[in-house]
């Protein structure tokens, strides 16, 4: 049976657009966090913002009116498709699954603001149609002619892993030849203020996308295999949700915690006691900030690059130590309200 493989990656992060910029920033340990500039704010909370998502001229012109969250998704998917190195199947042969937390908050706020200012007749329909949660996925499907299943999953930081799992299932069942899992978020003034008041520091924005397909003789680009994945919800015991997802993903991969050479997560290392103290715990959050559902997708991309390259960037190891031979990496995410998800990626 063919194994599911990540064959293309695309990233829009505060520390670089695309894998080369990302790799260079990680090698240098460069931070993308700074005082917010995209809107006026009295808050000095550092954040990770995207100045230019890197859309080519034609796409930038065609999608100039869409919300930032869509632009980031378009750019990340474009990179993943090109990175795959083969003609894009598109049409009915491709699925797209978007995982997001907030969607186009800027347009939502603008549309609702116009209602509150009693300008009902002048509220722009664009702000409404692009504020719909599936607008980013819709824009990507329109751009690339994706006519297979296109889904938007909503939720917290684990949602991009759930999007990856649904993509895996569709690619594995043969329903489609390939699937793109993508996650995207945008910063806006209201969310920045709210999360800052809640004590959350370093929130950010951006997108990440991966192309998944079954391994085959025509595959030219192989980052890693997807060996196991699981998610759980247990609001009364969030730790149980995460541990359950970790165990189930390991079982699916036929592995134990001893086989895992690194864990990538924004979850506190204390929650990962089942792994050896020497197992490297990796996070991008101190360099990129937290872009909610996107961070786990960035970790999937980093895991893919690391498994292909054979080493972890030292700048992102926050516990444990670098290992000599990377064979299996776990990416996991947990949410305070009891959602846990884990994915095992393996060297090809």
């Amino acid at each position, binding site marked *: 049976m063919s194994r599911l493989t990540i064959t293309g990656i695309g990233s829009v992060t505060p520390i670089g657009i695309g894998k080369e910029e990302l790799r260079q920033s990680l090698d240098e340990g460069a931070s993308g966090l700074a005082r917010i500039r995209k809107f006026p704010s009295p808050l000095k909370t550092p954040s990770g913002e995207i100045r230019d998502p890197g859309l080519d001229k034609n796409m930038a012109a065609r999608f100039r009116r869409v919300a930032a969250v869509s632009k980031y998704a378009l750019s990340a998917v474009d990179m993943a498709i090109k990175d795959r190195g083969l003609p894009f199947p598109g049409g*009915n042969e491709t699925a797209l699954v978007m995982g997001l*937390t*907030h969607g186009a908050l800027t347009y*939502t*706020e603008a*549309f*609702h*603001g116009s*209602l*509150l200012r009693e300008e*009902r*007749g002048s*509220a*722009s*329909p664009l702000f*409404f*149609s*692009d*504020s*719909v*949660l*599936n*607008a980013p*996925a*819709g*824009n990507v*499907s*329109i751009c*690339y*002619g*994706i*006519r*297979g*299943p*296109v*889904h*938007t*999953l*909503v*939720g*917290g930081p684990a*949602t991009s892993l*759930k999007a990856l799992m*649904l993509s895996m*299932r569709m690619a594995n*069942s043969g329903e489609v030849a390939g699937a793109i899992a993508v996650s995207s978020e945008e910063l806006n*003034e*209201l969310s920045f*203020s*709210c999360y800052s*008041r*809640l004590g959350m520091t370093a929130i950010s924005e951006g997108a990440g996308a991966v192309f998944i397909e079954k391994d085959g003789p025509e595959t030219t680009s192989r980052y890693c295999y997807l060996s196991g994945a699981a*998610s*759980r*919800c*247990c*609001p*009364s015991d969030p730790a149980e949700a995460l541990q359950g997802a970790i165990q189930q993903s390991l079982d699916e991969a036929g592995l134990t915690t001893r086989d895992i050479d690194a864990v990538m997560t924004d979850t506190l290392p204390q929650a990962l006691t089942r792994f050896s103290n020497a197992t490297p715990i990796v996070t991008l959050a101190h360099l990129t900030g937290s872009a909610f559902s996107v961070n786990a997708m960035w970790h999937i991309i980093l895991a893919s690059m690391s498994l292909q390259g054979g080493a972890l960037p030292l700048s992102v190891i926050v516990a444990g130590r670098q290992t000599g031979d990377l064979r299996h990496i776990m990416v996991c995410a947990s949410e305070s309200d*009891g*959602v846990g998800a884990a994915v095992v990626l393996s060297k090809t």
Partner: protein
Amino acid sequence: MNKRVVVTGMGIITSHGVGKEANWEKISAGKSGIREIVSFDTSGYRCRTGGEATDFAAAPLRNLDSRRLDRASHLLIHAAGEALAEAGLTSDIKNIPLLLSLGTTLGGMLSGEAFHRDVVERGIQRARLSLLSDYLAHAQAINLFREMKLKGDFLIFSNACASGTNAIGHAFNSIRQGKYNAAICGGYDTMSEFTFAGFSSLMAMTGTLCRPFDKDRDGLVLGEGAGILVLEELEHAGRRSARILGELSGYGESTDAHHMTSPDLSGLSAAAALTKALRDASNPAIDYINAHGTGTKYNDDMETMAILIALGEKAIEIPVSSIKPMIGHLLGGAGAVEAIISLLSIIHKTLPPSLNYVTPDPKCSLNIVLRPRASEIRTVLSNSFGFGGSNASLIIKEASCQG
């Protein structure tokens, strides 16, 4: 070999009331639940009516403080409670690992609106953050997990007006592929001024009556509510001696990749979803089509084309109706509520009518059900289409059908 998936419980809230009896009584009689909107001021809008679930009031909950919950959570929790009670799972549900698969377009938008009003009145730094606790679109699922002490996992689809059908389709696939033995699935959405103004800005709402497939149709009318199904693997339901209400036998989905708010008028992409669902169910004879039928010119033109393409010559014989003129368009809840009404039409062997249909449209040459009537319905095709070009179809059949 795929497993068989059966329905063992249903819960429904619409402008026709709370519960399947109240809803079926009015829908099968062709009554309208569309009234003047009371939850916000509609002056200034062309459309002033909608299907608000005015009979529904948030009730005290066992494990959560009901006063802190958004109306969306209440709709979901109540409909799920009804579905679980019918399935006989109220006390056992915490022992069964299950999938919660839901569709919503708005989540807790009413909380978001309240917060935004607070921002305008008090300023961004003083607005009450507590208003946001139920805003995000997955908060309602977490609340349901907490209230019912569920165990398992959830997935929230937000694929605009196809969300509920996609959520049911995902649960159906998960059970038949053996990932779960049981699922709670469906969709919900509340009436909000944000959405009302949005559809109004798109000139998609009628100033008169919603009349799907009628030549003089001029738009949709919004509604609110929830539709929840309990799905089980056939043998799992059998081991519990659960009453089987019906069976899901096919699911298909596709995407237009055409335009964010306008459907692909060729109907080809939507037809692909219908065709997949039919093929998935081994191409059964269809006795009734519960149409998406929004009453907008483009949707109904497109849906007619899709039905004609997917079902060929026999399409013009199959009875078709849309229940949206009676309860409004429930957005994320629409597909789920319509799946429940489809199943009730099978159980009661009665075709629900397409209200307000008067003048045939040559472009919509379908067999529209003008008034309720008895019919030997065994298998139903239920369609949903949404912004972003989302298309989804379900095949629902009677419990006694074999194969």
